[in-house]
């Protein structure tokens, strides 16, 4: 296992370097003079030149990239153009909020998705199965930003049970987490059902039933355990789209997380902030994927040993 982790860590190094390259290229892709954009509107030629000198924009691109990577690995993501504060400080303020939102959302994804998938698979092609799968299909099809507005309208405006926006207390978490988690739950439900149906068709399940084991014992002890293996990968992948989804949900519910920070930074052309936000979110995703791979391997190994 240790070797496996080391191998996977070695594999992600080029990916991380590639991510830094893409993020670095954001600045290069900007039409016009990056130094003029960084200096801000109405800056004098002298100030623009000063920026070019300070940020090394007059150096060869390869040299600029190497210097950028060096700074990133030292935790220096540059300064915001808006408030001149270090980008990393702002990210460290925002990231915990986004991670908290992602955590509750993935919890909803797993609990709702697994429950719905199992309910469907236990009696396939029944009214219950079809109903759950139709709801799952709707869950995949609803845009999160629209679902968020609908939930807000129903629970905050009409029923007044929950706060409209913000991130001040536990009640604020419910609607955004539900909005973000529902789509993933629908995908996990479909995957769990499909995986469960595969497993239920296996010989050892027939043997378990032939032995006279109770149905719930067969389903939960024998089938579910094996059916969960491919589901773990789907949950891992869902974390990625969930992290991307925070951008929209944080905007709907006015949550000051990393996603909203990136969108605000794009609007104000605060490029270092965009670069820092995208880089950190991607690195989190890369490491979560690594964690999922390790978990997948651990679960598989345990089954092999059994």
């Amino acid at each position, binding site marked *: 296992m240790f070797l496996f982790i080391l191998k996977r860590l070695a594999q992600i190094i*080029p*990916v*991380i370097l*590639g*991510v830094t*390259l*893409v*993020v670095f*290229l*954001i*600045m290069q*892709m*900007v*039409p016009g003079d990056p130094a003029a954009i960084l200096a801000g509107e109405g800056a004098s030629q002298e100030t623009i030149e000063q920026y070019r000198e300070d940020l090394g924009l007059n150096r060869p691109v390869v040299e600029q990239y190497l210097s950028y990577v060096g700074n990133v690995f030292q935790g220096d993501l540059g300064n915001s153009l808006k408030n001149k504060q270090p980008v990393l400080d702002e990210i460290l303020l925002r990231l915990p909020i986004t991670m908290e939102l992602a955590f509750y959302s993935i919890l909803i994804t797993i609990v709702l998705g697994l429950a719905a998938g199992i309910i469907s698979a236990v009696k396939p092609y029944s009214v219950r199965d079809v109903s759950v799968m139709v709801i799952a*299909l*709707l869950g*995949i*099809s*609803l*845009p*999160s*930003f*629209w679902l968020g*507005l*609908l939930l*807000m*309208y129903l629970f905050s*405006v009409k029923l007044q049970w929950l706060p409209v926006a913000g991130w001040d207390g536990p009640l604020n978490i419910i609607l955004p987490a539900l909005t973000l988690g529902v789509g993933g739950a629908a995908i996990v439900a479909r*995957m769990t059902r*499909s*995986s469960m149906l*595969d497993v239920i068709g296996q010989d050892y399940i027939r043997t378990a039933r032939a032995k006279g084991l109770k149905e719930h014992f067969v389903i939960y002890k024998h089938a579910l355990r094996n059916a969960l293996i*491919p589901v773990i990968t789907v949950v891992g992948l869902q*974390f*990625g*789209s*969930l*992290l*991307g*989804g925070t*951008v*929209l949900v944080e*905007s*709907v519910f006015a949550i000051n997380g990393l996603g909203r920070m*990136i*969108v605000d*930074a*794009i*609007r104000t052309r605060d*490029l270092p902030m*965009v670069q820092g936000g*995208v880089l950190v*979110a*991607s690195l*989190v*995703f*890369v490491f979560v994927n690594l964690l999922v791979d390790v978990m997948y391997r651990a679960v598989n190994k345990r089954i092999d040993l059994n």
Partner: protein
Amino acid sequence: MASKVTTAQTMELAKARQNTRKERWHSFRSVMTQNKAALAGAIIIGAYLLMMLVAPIIAPYDPFEISLEDKLTPPSMEHWMGTDDKGRDILSRILYGSRLSIGVGFASVLFGAFFGITLGLIAGYYGKWVDTIISRILDVMLAFPGILLALAIISALGPGLINVTIAVGVFSIPLFARIVRGSTMEVKKLEYIDAIRTLGANDFTIIFKHIFPNVLSPIIVQGSMRLATAILSAAGLSFLGLGAQPPSPEWGAMLSSGRDFLFSAPYMAIFPGLMISILVLGFNLFGDGLRDALDPKLKK
């Protein structure tokens, strides 16, 4: 003589391939007629495409015409979906907006498919270091969660519908490339490719004339699934104010303006969102059916 035998064999193989294609088409037709959900999806998509075409004929009002005395009128016989904060008829805007929302979805998937298929074919056919380099580039593109890669591109290119199309398209490239790469690796090992190569066909002909038609099934399945995601992503980016700009009737942008009137005129946000949801549902239903018909291996 040897060449004649090879030609005859190749023709037989080509005929067999054609038969397989015919069988696939029959299987597709039978699944689409038997699978009611897929048929429902096809009908939904058809209705939306028709709406795109006839929008100028059936729209009751000018989608851009401001009429402040009619502003925020709830749905009525006169304005079926009500009017927005500038008194514009929401139904007419939705009808015209279909051209933008669906158009951006199709354009971005075509963009992503073009580059993704080309990269996948090249990586799968040549293998070795070419495959390694392309695969690592795809790995990097897939390392960006959700729409973050699209956001990064927009931050560089600036907001706007064309840039959103490019950004969402780029986001689709690795997904097409991965699938095509895998299928190409399988197809290139088949006998008829060897036969064609023996006849002297060059790599370009082999890749685009002989391999490409045989990896089309997973591309079509992926394309229909990606359309749903592309439409959602493009609408999402417009919702954030990074895509279509006011007074454009793009659905994501309309939803974004409706958000400010959620308390007083919820229908401003409800109808555009409903239109996006039904369309995406249609593509998902259709995509599921297509997958079952064309690519049973992907059925899971």
